[in-house]
């Protein structure tokens, strides 16, 4: 009798201690990876974006709120290639969460899934703020999104095996919709081929390569190094020879520098969302590309 009472009590405690099947907690370092995790995980995932499109993911603080999110995360989705090197290591070391340390299943890097552009043959800080693994701003090529999505779907299925079939089905659905969208975007973007543009920082490289745009110049002499007035003077005279159709800037960039150049080279500034949430149109990943293309096509009309 006593035994069975104890048994019932123990069972009750066990039941109380076993949490209800909770959503997989995902901490994404950017709004894009957060959007992708939501596309692939639906209501089976609880996604938190560490940054917004109005922040430079390379320059954010290891905020206490983010440390708290890292502590509770089941999966961290990062870009990698040193983009988050100034703050993500602090989150990981302060988190007391072995599940999300690099090398664990709970740590995912998008840059590991795709081939990066602009991998330097050698690195030295005199070259500016370069990334030894290559250019980390890989989200602006939809082919990269598709590749990263495949790997992320597999990772979600691995971490949450009970819902594996759900992730596979949802992943396949996403790939199908994405492929259709990509064909549509590429048709839409045909007039952009060979169009000359000026960029601020070399973070549009993947978009430029995908669309066949022609990058005439960057407004930074070296990555992360602001231009001097003599550099800008040379740039203006260079652009007089080869006038760009537009000057690109991201939603999080200050508009002063691009406005200054636009006035001198008589080309419009095109503000791109760069990340999900950067503009009203870029509500999700599909919207990000729709809106980016609409904005790029505007000056050609």
């Amino acid at each position, binding site marked *: 009798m006593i035994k069975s009472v104890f048994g019932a009590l123990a069972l009750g405690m066990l039941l109380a201690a076993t949490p209800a099947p909770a959503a997989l907690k995902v901490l994404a370092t950017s709004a894009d990876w957060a959007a992708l995790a939501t596309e692939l995980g639906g209501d089976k995932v609880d996604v938190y974006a560490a940054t*917004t499109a109005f922040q430079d993911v390379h320059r954010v603080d290891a*905020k206490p*709120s983010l*440390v*708290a999110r890292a502590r509770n995360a089941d999966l961290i989705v990062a870009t990698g290639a040193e983009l988050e090197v100034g703050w993500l290591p602090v989150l990981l070391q302060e988190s007391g969460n072995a599940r999300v340390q690099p090398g664990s299943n709970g740590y995912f890097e998008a840059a590991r899934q795709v081939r990066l552009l602009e991998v330097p043959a050698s690195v030295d800080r005199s070259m500016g703020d370069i990334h030894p693994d290559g250019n980390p701003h890989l989200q602006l090529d939809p082919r990269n999104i598709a590749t990263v999505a495949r790997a992320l779907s597999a990772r979600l299925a691995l971490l949450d095996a009970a819902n594996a079939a759900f992730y596979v089905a949802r992943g396949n659905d996403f790939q199908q919709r994405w492929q259709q969208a990509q064909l549509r975007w*590429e048709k839409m973007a045909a007039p952009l081929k060979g169009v000359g543009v000026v960029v601020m920082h070399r973070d549009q490289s993947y978009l430029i390569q995908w669309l066949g745009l022609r990058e005439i110049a960057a407004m930074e002499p070296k990555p992360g190094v602001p231009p001097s007035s003599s550099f800008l003077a040379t740039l203006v005279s260079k652009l007089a020879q080869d006038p760009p159709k537009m000057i690109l800037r991201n939603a999080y960039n200050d508009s002063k520098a691009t406005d200054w150049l636009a006035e001198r080279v008589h080309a419009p500034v095109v503000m791109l969302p760069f990340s999900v949430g950067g503009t009203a149109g870029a509500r999700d990943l599909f919207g990000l590309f729709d809106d980016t293309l609409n904005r790029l096509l505007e000056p050609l009309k």
Partner: protein
Amino acid sequence: MNFLTIAAARTLVPLLLVMSSPVFADPLGDLRAELEALKASNALRIEQLEQRIAQLEASAATARSEPPTVAPAMPAAAVASSGPNAFNPALSLILAGTYRALSGDPADYRIAGFVPSGSEVGPGARGFNLGESELTIAANVDPYFFGAVTAAVSGDDSISVEEAFFRTAALTHGLTIKGGRFFSGLGYLNGVHAHAWDFVDQPLVYQALLGNQFAQDGAQLKWLAPTDLFVEFGLEAGSGRDYPGTTRSANGLNAASGFVHLGNDLGDSASWRSGLSLLRTNAENRGFQATDGAGVPVSNAFTGNTQTWVADFTLKWAPHGNPTERQLKLQGEYLRRTETGALTFDTDVRSLAGSYHSEQSGWYLQGVYQFRPRWRAGLRYDSLDSGDTRIAILPGGLLPGFAFPDLQNATPTRTSVMLDWNLSEFSRLRAQFAWDQARLNGTDHQLFLQYLFSLGAHGAHKF
């Protein structure tokens, strides 16, 4: 034409796979899949694939023609080199130097009303001075531990171990254990290395009550609560060899500290962290130099226990949380220390002993504003209150009241302004001016010009 392209890809795939690393496997796998999908045909896509294949062919050709020692252009992560250097830890080095122009002689610098807290306290020597070159070596030990050492090579050719600790990496439930020598987690600035300070020197209250920074030789246990609000608890136990403690020949714990930190965001643009900490440690014959009532130098020693409370608050604001253009950092801390025990006056000659009790406190408040990219300006105000130190060998006892002129009640203050220029994430040039009223009388005008350079591994800083 399409057939040719596919054939080219088919010969390329095995060639590249043999030639190099698994990195190529992925893109080419994708390429194959894409080609399959494209058999249905889409002119634009095929054109692009042709371009990509041409690029791959070109890079394959260059890779073939180059000697094998030249790394082909591919993600560095995939070219994990073998050999004894493959596991080399991350190295980073800080170069620092300061030029100082001081109106008061730094040799007789003293914070009035406070027992001197060590040699590193004060504005430092006049003229050009090499600062501490901080060398940090860090790496994962194995899947379970991380290890790091920071050695400071001083301008006077001495080397000191600032930190040398291991930290767990495989614990869950928000737990982290750290062991070795480390800056204690008390307060906000205590754990910050000199190169990351927003001013050339530490606030007066840190100098007076903690001898600049308190390091433990011991262990730290931290627990992060499973909430979205940042709530962190920490406990430390250690040797307490650092000021305000001393080295003791005791088996037990000499110093213990505990802290709780809270933090969160305020909307998109601001975040804060706040904390409360307590440090208890013991001193045994903690000697200090002073002058007696007749102006004769004497050595005194304190033995007893010391307890320090720290309350800290930090707020950072940037438009949309993007600190590229503008950022404001506001920070303040209040410290209060109680010391109870025995004091020996003039240990060399008279050796008079009596009881000692002091309650001393101080605070600072500072703001640093990045008003345009790469430029920051800062303002800091320091205030100390020495309180009335009760020493039983004074009135009614064996010595006249002026026997400890250095410990008379005083309220030192200091105001500092700072401007720094950060050409990149890795370099900082700074000018600072201070009106220092820490001495009993007169204002010390202090000008500092400082450089700070960071070499090697990209640092990651706490909030």
